[in-house]
């Protein structure tokens, strides 16, 4: 039991990341409110970044910026996941901006952010 809790604490970032991924995924899939959908997408992506950052972090080591002329890799954390997170954030921000732009356009026309209601109005117009 003690080991189980020790493992839980050790993997806390991963557990939090997986829970947040599920939460974000379900919100992106099921939310009717477009703004909440976008928030769900951001939670989902951020959880992956948390997961990645926690994998790159090594206890007791410092940020991968050469300090005091020390070139030994053993001193620093793994910089690759941080680079990936940075790229991922750029992608995520771009997609969020695009998604928000589309939402603003629809809100301008129908004065609502409820996607089901919007689709109902669109279909009614088509008839």
């Amino acid at each position, binding site marked *: 039991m003690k080991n189980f809790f020790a493992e839980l604490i050790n993997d806390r970032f991963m557990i939090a990341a997986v829970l947040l*991924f599920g939460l974000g995924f379900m919100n*992106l899939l099921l939310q009717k409110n477009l703004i909440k959908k976008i928030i769900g997408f951001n939670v989902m992506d951020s959880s992956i970044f948390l997961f990645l950052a926690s994998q790159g972090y090594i206890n007791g080591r410092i940020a991968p910026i050469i300090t005091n002329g020390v070139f030994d890799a053993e001193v620093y954390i793994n910089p690759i996941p941080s680079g990936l997170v940075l790229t991922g954030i750029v992608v995520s921000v771009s997609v969020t901006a695009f*998604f928000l732009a589309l939402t603003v356009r629809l809100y301008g026309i129908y004065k609502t952010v409820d996607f089901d209601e*919007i689709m109902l109005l669109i279909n009614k117009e088509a008839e």
Partner: protein
Amino acid sequence: MLPYYYNIPAISILLCMISGISIPLLSSGRRAYRLTLFVSAVVTLLSALLMYKVIPLNEYFTYMMGHFPAPWGNELSAGPLEAMMGFIFGLVMFLSLLGGSMTLFHDILPGKQKFYFTMMNMLMAALLAMTYTNDLFTGYVFIEISTIAACAIVVARDTPKTIGSTIRYLAISLLGSGLFLIGVVLLYCITGHLLMPNIQTQVLRLVSTGLYTVPLTVVAGLLFAGIAIKSALFPFGAWLPMAHGGATTASSAVLSGLVLKGYIVMLIKIFYRVFTIDVIRDLNVTNIMFACGLAGMIYGSIEAFREEHIKRMLAHSSMAQIGYIFMGIGLDVNLGVAAAFLQIMVHAFVKPLLFLCAGRLSEVYDHEKSSYRLRGSAHKDPIAGIGFTIGAMSMVGIPLLGGFAAKFYLVTSAMMNPSKLWPALITLMISAVMNALYYMPEVIAIWTRCELCTPNPVDPNPGFDYISAPVLSAGVLFLGLNGYSMIQVIQRGLALL
């Protein structure tokens, strides 16, 4: 010194990106259109040169971007398959834009036309990068670029309906990207690498020791699910007909003909270069692909049969055709994957041909999309009528056309795996009959003279009449007549992956 043709993949991608970024500086949509056509033509010619070099030598090479080795640098890899896909992407993009130009300038507001071509260029860059990349994370980044670009070309008409369908497409697509990304991240955590050959070395080590079998299965499943959502495989394809329904003709042609295929090509590359196809088969991922493929073939065909709107009917038919591709991969024989690849190529020619011709035929009756009301339209625009007929015949599987060759090799490969023979054969038969049931009435309708109808005079489009329709039809015929040679080249290409 590197042989000069090793630079072609990087040059093709960079050319599209630079052209996409510089288009907003141009003064009009017409100029942006010409530049995009020029870039597509150059990519086609460069890819043809790459094919000419690598296919006879059966050569596969990796190209280090900026000469930085991993993990700092990034790599591209290319061989016969990548070169052929680059050629098809360039050519079909060129023909789709040329053939759909009239409706394109009619549908999209003048102020937004050049941004449409920016997106087309970025889409082309993303498709090429997904095909050529040797790095999983780069693959993810370009998947997202292609998502934004594909959504942007759908929404370009800027009507409430297209915005609504784009939001649905974007939301579903992002679910796919999320699953793909977490798959890549998990794989990185397990293996410590992002370059495909390095991951493969570690994966094979893990498989030989029996360690991490469950996480590897989960990763393969996540990557497959992510790509399946994005490539509209059953049961994830509900967004496709909606996106097609409102999009301009060129967008529909590119979306159905190229974008969906780009993801699948990348998935095949991942299966071969990251996991190896034997490991994927051992992990039973192919069984799920097979089941989803079969269900997609039936569901897509039934929905297409029920649909009255011609573009949505073609979109449902695309879902069925995507089912054929996944069924081929899921057959667990190497010829099946080759047949799936041939199906990708055939569909990349046939579907844009059908969309472009349907677009032209609908112009005869004031952009009418209802199948019933397109009666007699082929008499007003015979080239579009002939093109539609060739495309429909290929879809049904008439011999000498590409669709027949693809179906023939799918059946042949099904016969090599007795455990999946009967489900595959029965579903192929049902789907082929359904194809005939919804395509042939359409062909008969467009060729049946309608005395009471009042057709519009159709503006001539020499690009469509003399280049797009004939070249796409010739492509369908070429693949049909050279099915055996194509399968040989594809099989050699797959062996090099």
